[in-house]
């Protein structure tokens, strides 16, 4: 898997790439605007970061407390060391209930565990119910963004897809029309499902409850109509106290999409009469990451996606170029922890501009960790680290594979990069490349001339 190769594929369609870049920037802009309306914004980030630090320092205590309280609330708690065990547990529950079709709301963890293909191989129909996820599922694609799963697609693509799958009118690209077609299609699925699967945004140790946030209401439509709710939760999703939710819910949606809160924030504490709730607590590499002093902070992530929206590389290379379940800056520090060889190019898919770190609501030092991974990877590849860091300090990238990335990406990116980035002193790539010829006259001159 190579980020540069995939990125240049993405950049083939220049118009779409430009749209992608601008749209995500617009989301980033909304995040900026709304954060400025909260005078205590920076204080909230600091508190969120401290709470998560406390969680990582006391993880086993909080997990045990969470389990105890959840069990007291009649919730079944399962533990899974890895993806296979997680998938087996889910399958076991489905088999116990003779369930052949499930609805599932957005869960990055189940993507990470490749639950869908596993269940499908075992004869179970899985329907992703988040609109964006349903769209990519129809296409047999993974989500390209953790909050905006279908951001790489245009409405024309979706219109064609829905015409084929949902028999919508040919050529009707109206988002309202298409969304309502999906509403009717998914309503039927909600009404028919016996088991619903969701992810978890926060698990509260103090109460044993867990919180799921959506705007569509799809998680709730699924679980409240089904008899059994399975919630899949990474062990790092724990927070100590109920009141900590006040901090995280203020930060999450504002960071993610620039809205003050998601429209539905559901607190599951015990099953409704006659129903069942299961929680699967999943490690799958998290304890290893916790043991890496330099990288353990990546576990503080609340999956808001802000680092993706702001990243000049993500915006111009698309989620698929990363080849990992979580793309973008945070994905580039999480994925090498899972498989350093497979994801060796990801920490280099960054300008190290630090914008990700600036927007991160839990203050993860993302760009510093990217830099750390580069050193680890280079070390692993047997290159002399000292000379590399010196070259990086000098603004010259001589690492062979980093060079490859930048070259391939820049060839496409130059078509759409604004001058301020291409020509900024920060851009260490441009120095290695021939830049396109600059226009003979400046825009200002041209404007003056043509206005008359």
């Amino acid at each position, binding site marked *: 898997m190579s980020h540069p190769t995939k990125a240049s594929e993405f950049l083939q369609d220049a118009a779409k790439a430009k749209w992608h870049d601008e749209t995500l920037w617009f989301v980033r802009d909304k995040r900026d605007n709304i954060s400025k309306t909260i005078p*205590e914004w920076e204080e909230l980030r600091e508190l969120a970061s401290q709470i998560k*630090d406390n969680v990582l320092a006391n993880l086993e205590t909080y997990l045990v407390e969470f389990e105890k309280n959840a069990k007291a609330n009649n919730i079944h708690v399962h533990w899974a060391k890895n993806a296979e065990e997680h998938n087996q547990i889910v399958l076991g529950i489905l088999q116990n209930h003779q369930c052949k079709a499930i609805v599932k709301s957005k869960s990055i963890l189940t993507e990470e565990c490749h639950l869908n293909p596993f269940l499908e191989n075992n004869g179970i129909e899985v329907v992703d119910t988040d609109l964006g996820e349903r769209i990519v599922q129809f296409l047999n694609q993974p989500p390209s963004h953790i909050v905006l799963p279908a951001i790489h697609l245009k409405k024309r693509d979706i219109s064609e897809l829905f015409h084929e799958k949902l028999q919508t009118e040919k050529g009707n690209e109206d988002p309202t029309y298409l969304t309502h077609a999906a509403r009717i299609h998914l309503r039927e699925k909600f009404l028919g499902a016996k088991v619903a699967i969701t992810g978890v945004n926060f698990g509260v140790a103090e109460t044993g409850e867990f919180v799921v946030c959506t705007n569509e209401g799809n998680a709730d439509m699924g679980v409240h109509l089904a008899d059994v709710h399975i919630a899949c939760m990474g062990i790092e999703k724990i927070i100590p106290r109920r009141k900590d939710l006040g*901090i995280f819910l*203020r930060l999450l949606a504002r960071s993610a999409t620039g809205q*003050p809160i998601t429209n*539905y924030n*559901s607190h599951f504490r015990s099953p409704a009469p006659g129903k069942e709730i299961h929680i699967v607590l999943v490690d799958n590499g998290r*304890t290893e990451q916790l043991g890496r002093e330099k990288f353990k902070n990546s576990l503080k992530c609340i999956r808001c996606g802000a680092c993706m929206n702001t990243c000049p590389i993500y915006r111009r290379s698309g989620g698929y170029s990363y080849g990992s379940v979580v793309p973008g800056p945070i994905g580039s520090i999480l994925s090498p922890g899972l498989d350093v060889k497979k994801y060796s190019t990801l920490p280099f898919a960054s300008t190290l501009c630090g914008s990700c770190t600036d927007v991160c609501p839990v203050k993860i030092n993302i760009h510093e960790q990217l830099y750390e991974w580069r050193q680890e990877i280079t070390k692993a590849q047997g290159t002399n680290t000292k000379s590399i860091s010196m070259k990086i300090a000098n603004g010259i990238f001589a690492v062979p594979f980093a060079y490859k990335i930048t070259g391939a990406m820049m060839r496409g990116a130059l078509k759409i990069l604004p001058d301020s980035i291409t020509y900024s002193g920060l851009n260490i790539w441009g120095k290695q490349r021939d830049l396109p010829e600059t226009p003979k006259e400046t825009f200002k001159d041209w404007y003056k001339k043509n206005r008359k």
Partner: protein
Amino acid sequence: MSSREHILAKIKAIPKEASPLPEIPSFESPLGHKAAFILSIQANKGEVITESELKDFIAINRFEKILNLTKGMESLSTQPLPSDAHELNELEVAIIQGQFGVAENGAIWLTDENMGLRVLPFITEHLVIVLNEKSLVSNMHEAYNKIGIQHSGFGLFIAGPSKTADIEQSLVIGAHGAKSLRVVLTNL
């Protein structure tokens, strides 16, 4: 060793530095809660209306499937709460009582006792929440202080109608859940 023991032992074996759990200030805003709340609901694509506007809304649209769980307005109700949640699929209007609202984001707190069936506020075509304006709080910190140790099997902060922007970032109201949210502010 079970997976549980395995995971916990692995975490335990990692050397960790102590990191204190911070106290959370209240960050209360001195601004009037009511005006801020109304603006927040509107920004979330909901509406704040009066009781008589609610009656007009029902009359004009000739809704016939209405379920009211609030005290007062009983006359609007056309059906009781069914025993099976699936029977709510055709419901046009649900009217429920909210416990309190949050000025900074328009979120309204509901628990099992307000919803009857947990799916009610999601499955209904139009949702109406009756809320006492004296119950408004400034922000989410105050909200969780107010919730305190309250024990409900299911709690929900609802801030607007069901929405999505998954198709080219165009906002569409009415993805899976309620296509509209109306809040009736009372002052009792």
